[in-house]
């Protein structure tokens, strides 16, 4: 080789060239694949919402199975009768939009399909003292109306999120949890069916209507999860922080919907 690779000028030139080459390569890959990735993410969100409602391809007791991507758009539009958006500020719901009203609006952070509302962005909005848009998907399960609400929080390494289906008394009718980077075999097991299924039938409210949430608890002496009004589900071994994160996001995010369900109750009584 004729080049002296030890020279400072060569080192700097090499570094600059490498940054340019690698940078443009990554930028090119990312931007050319973006439409495909966005479409995949959109379908995934629909699959997740439907999964929480109990519309999925599960068979027996194996892994979780979503409705297939070919039919997810049809299933979503036929099973979700309405996508509501609640505008929440300081413990109150100050406004309620239908899907059409929300999509037609040209205000900041509005004008999109409610299911595409970015929960992380909404949490930032709340921190900045602005109102927060809470999507709520209305569908049916066994002939009764269920409401699916998104939740988002922190696990051990990264974000965790999910969807919870609730009936009018805030009893859990299905859940879906996912994570960005929890430890495989430990925290990542929140995405396993046996963990999600434990939540079915759990109550969020006391008989007096006080919001209790559901804790992922160690040693709740109920491994088969037969007691449904203890506000606890059995924890995952070796995943304490992830489990605490699940408890926290259920408590924090579902509580925001409490005024909506209280309202529902006074309306029907």
């Amino acid at each position, binding site marked *: 080789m004729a080049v002296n690779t030890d020279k400072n000028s060569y080192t700097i030139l090499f*570094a600059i060239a490498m940054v340019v080459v690698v940078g443009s390569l990554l930028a090119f890959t990312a931007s050319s694949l973006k439409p495909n*990735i966005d479409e995949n993410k959109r379908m995934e969100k629909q699959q997740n919402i439907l999964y929480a409602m109990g519309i999925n391809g599960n068979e027996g007791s194996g892994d979780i199975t979503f409705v297939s991507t070919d039919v997810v758009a049809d299933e979503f539009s036929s099973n979700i009768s309405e996508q509501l958006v609640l505008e929440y500020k300081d413990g109150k719901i100050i406004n309620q939009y239908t899907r059409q009203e929300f999509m037609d609006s040209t205000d900041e952070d509005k004008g999109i399909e409610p299911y595409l509302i970015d929960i992380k962005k909404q949490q930032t909005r709340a921190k900045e003292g602005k109102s927060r848009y809470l999507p709520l998907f209305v569908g049916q399960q066994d002939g009764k109306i269920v409401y699916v609400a998104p939740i988002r929080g922190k696990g051990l390494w990264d974000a965790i999120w999910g969807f919870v289906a609730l009936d009018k008394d805030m009893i859990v009718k299905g859940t879906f949890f996912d994570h960005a980077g929890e*430890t495989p*075999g430990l925290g990542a097991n929140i995405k396993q069916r046996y963990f999600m299924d434990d939540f079915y039938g759990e109550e969020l409210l006391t008989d007096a209507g006080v919001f209790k949430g559901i804790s992922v608890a160690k040693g709740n002496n109920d491994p088969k999860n037969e007691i449904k009004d203890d506000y606890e589900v059995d924890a995952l071994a070796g995943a304490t922080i992830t489990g605490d994160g699940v408890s926290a996001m259920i408590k924090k995010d579902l509580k925001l919907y409490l005024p909506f369900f209280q309202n529902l109750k006074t309306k029907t009584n």
Partner: protein
Amino acid sequence: MGLLSKKDAKLITDPLTDNNPITIQVLGICSALAITAELKASLVMGIAVLFVLGIGNVVISLMRNIIPSKIRIIVQLIVVASLVIIVDQVLKAFAFELSKTLSVFIGLIITNCIIMGRFEAFALGNGPWKSFLDGIGNALGYAVILIIVGFFRELLGSGTLFGIPVLGDPIEKTGVYSIGYENNGFMLMPPMALIIVGLIIWVQRSRNKDLIED
């Protein structure tokens, strides 16, 4: 082996036994602790490292004469990081389900010291073909240990293999649980991986005394 010369074949077989990346070179311990609580994760990680190390070693080997030695570590890091990111993006676009399974491993691969270790120790001084074989060999050696550790941790910790119960139902008390056997939850904790790796090292060194250092 007609395809490989004896020397080349050694590049693949050595890391499986007497020059194993985990038990002898002591590389890649961190991921061996982190993801071996179940067999499936061990296997996926093994395959992922096989791809990245095989290709990465070839790329570094091709660049070995033009990489300035002063910044070679950064160059290696950039090569492995961009490789992994590009693969991740392509999977996200065309095999979304698979990418969901692999997403947690992405960070672990980039920071896996086996990869940097082999770039530095082998690919910088050898040709592409040899480097490729070395990459494959070391990744296989790594995968073998991961699978052994994963097998014992999942079996003793959860009573399952690949998520399928093999010892009966711990709640209904069937199978071996009916005679009082309990899952050892401690096996799911990372320190137990270290103890299993220690046991493997013990067995290996007692069979081959040459490996014992003074």
